[in-house]
């Protein structure tokens, strides 16, 4: 069994068994390691990607489910860190250890794609899917507000 799908705008192919988590296919078969393994249970958001333009836990998505669909990872969000969320993330000096930040950025980009001017409560609700053990939450809020303003 093999799966064909789109990854960051290009045709991609995986030979992994259909039940294999997309996360591991992206990271270890296709070698795009910006998407992280944090818990494997869809509770931390380190593995967040976009599937057909909406955020999804890649650890909870089986490769067999994405045949023909379009997956975007942090590497595909922009070619040069120029996405407004990435720019805001640097301006607000958000990352500490950085491990969760790909997932945070993918969640934030998803929020702004569907709600260009979220209020604080909407930001908190949307972003509480993602854990940051370094506690960068206050800066994430500020960065999303900045990205919403500057986008």
């Amino acid at each position, binding site marked *: 069994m093999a799966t064909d799908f789109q990854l960051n705008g290009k045709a991609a192919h995986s030979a992994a068994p259909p039940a*294999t988590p997309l996360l591991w296919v992206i990271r270890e*078969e296709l070698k795009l390691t910006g998407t992280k393994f944090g818990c494997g249970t869809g*509770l931390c958001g380190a593995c967040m990607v976009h599937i057909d333009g909406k955020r999804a836990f890649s650890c909870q998505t089986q490769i067999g489910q994405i045949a023909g669909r379009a997956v975007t990872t942090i590497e595909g969000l922009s070619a040069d860190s120029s996405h407004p969320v990435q720019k805001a993330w640097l301006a607000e000096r958000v*990352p500490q250890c*950085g491990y969760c930040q790909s997932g945070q*950025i993918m969640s934030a980009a998803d929020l702004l794609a569907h709600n260009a001017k979220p209020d604080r409560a909407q930001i908190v609700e949307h972003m509480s899917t993602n854990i940051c053990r370094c*506690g960068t939450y206050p800066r994430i809020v500020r960065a999303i507000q900045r990205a919403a303003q500057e986008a």
Partner: protein
Amino acid sequence: MTIAIQKIEISRRSLMIGAAGFSFTVASGLNAGSAVAARSGEVALSPWVTISTDDTVAIMSPAAEMGQGSLTSLPLILAEELDADWSKVRVIVAPPNDALYKNPAFGYMYTAGSNAVTAYFKDLRKFGAQVRKVLLANAGNRWEVPVAELTTEPNVVIHEKSGRRLTYGEIAAFAELPAKAPEVAESELKSPEKFRLIGKDVMRVELPQKVNGSAQYSIDVQVPGMLYGAILRSPVEGAAPDKIDDAKAKAIAGVVQVVPLPYGVGVIAETPWAAFDAKDALKVTWTRSGKAWGFNSEKALPVFAAAARDMSQPTKLWAKEGDAPAALQSAATIVEAEYRNDLVYHAQMEPLNAVAAVSPAGDACELWCGVQSKSIAVTVAATALGIAPDKIAYHDMLMGGGFGRRGHRDEEYVHDAVVLSNAVKKPVKAMWTREDDVHNGRFNPLSAHFLRAGFDASGKLIAFHHRKACDEVTAFQDPVRFERQKGRDGIAYNGLDAPYYEIPNRLGEAVPRESGLRTSSLRGIAHLTNIFAIESFMDELARKRGIDPATFRRDLVKTNPRAVNIIDKVSRMADWGKKRDGSALGFTYMNYSGTQIALAAEVSLDRKSGALRVRNVWTALDPGITVQPDNIVAQTESSIVYGLGFALFERITVDDGAVQESGFYDYRVPRMSDIPEMHIEVVASNNHPTGVGQMATPLMAPAIANAVAELTGVRLRESPMTPERVKKALG
């Protein structure tokens, strides 16, 4: 400025040079810096600095980066005295070499205790000043003018009289190096008002890589021909595999080998999913070796508490001043109290892992890992293989969180990768799942605290006695250090006697337990539990005496103006005297390794559910010279959030010696929806810089408990203060 996280060749000769002390006897290829640069037109001016003819200044960064920012702040300190142009600085991760790059506070390369800036500060300034002197001497020779007539601006030596200028890169092209490093007197160092870099925020060097997925952690390493390893570990520390049924595991497609180990069973497979499936398919029974079998944390805590109270129990003296027991006997009033802390877990976001590639002959190994001590990582790998440390090619990787978890003397997850790779003589990425990371966690120990205080007839606090019953930590975490420290366990007991409070008679006593559980330093370290006890107790004492809790503390630090300033500042920030409607404030203060910090929390309570809500946190800290002020704010935000989880809900339980929690579904950590508004002020002073990485963490639980006492009159004595416990305490 760029960052090079890469393999660094370092010759035997340069190790010898380092061992003999800082030396300028540098020849081509001998120096770590020059080897790193590996380009023509570069001059290694010291083991710390290489200057290129293109004016690039490469500076070694000796600490491990786990999010705290040392990768940037340490080379920046050197660049300050060198008067380097930061835009031309290239930060190089220092290779494992204790002789050259050791943390002066530990004697080896180890990043912990929020002490990297504190410990390296003096040396880094000296090293920068020495290189600057060499550059000045060379410019003086070239122009035939006295060095005293020369000054520097960033990356330029200037002779003002003649208007001549030479860039550092231009000097590098002809520089001659002295045989001995120039002497630098303290008085020759910059005075703080001349700082161009220290105290001004710069972009952390690795941050751009952390917004586009290119930052490399060991879990991201890809090596051609690499296999994947997973390990089923014994549920109880010290147990070993007894019977192994690996038939089902071996039948899984892609499984290469099953590797019995003294502490578990490893599986090696062609893919990570096959390795994890095979680990789950193993059927293993365990020997009953190990001390923790039968241990139940909920049943043990009352036993610990009884031991802490029982004056006939054997104790270890931690610290004493005056004679607290005698003063208590003569005291007019005695107050006693007890506090308890559950086990808590680091929960760094990157589950532990490492990559090793043992050579076909088993006589060399390449190693990729994220560790708080690269010296230990190299030793662990070399020892496991029975080869010399110089046969380990070490690759330094960023850490997806450290928090004290990655600096144990055995660095067991590094060991995993090495022994699995050695079994197949191929590269292996050994990964723990989140469940592995929880089940095999090494925790901040369970502790029970008994405190006594005595007031004289005039109401003066004359005696303070703190007894802590807990498993010792250093003995498990780092037996080498434990022995070196002659059995003194700072990771468990630092700060036990609240030495910064002006109380004439103080006694801190350890009542060591030996449960056989795995223990670890963890953000906040000993203060995490000791300060919950001490700052809750101080609040009780203030209330007992009818004195405002902030004023009560202020009176106990009145000869320390920095402490008084911080207490007053937080009182003002929080509008401390003002009563709130439906919420209340709690106050705390601590002197953590010289950093002055006070913190107030505003808490409300849902009486029906028992849930506490922290609405606001105000904190101010004075860590002396502030090397990177905005990063200090970031670290303080971070340490507030970390402390919030321990205060409100984080809790590991153990039954029959085995951890009962498994992941984020039963071990809750703070999310964005949990966090309070944070109001943080950093107070810079010209004192030697002290730690900033974990300062607010220990204050969160006592600040919350003190606020609840103000709000309800009920004292919470057990951390975490879960809704069930709050409801029970309210009655």
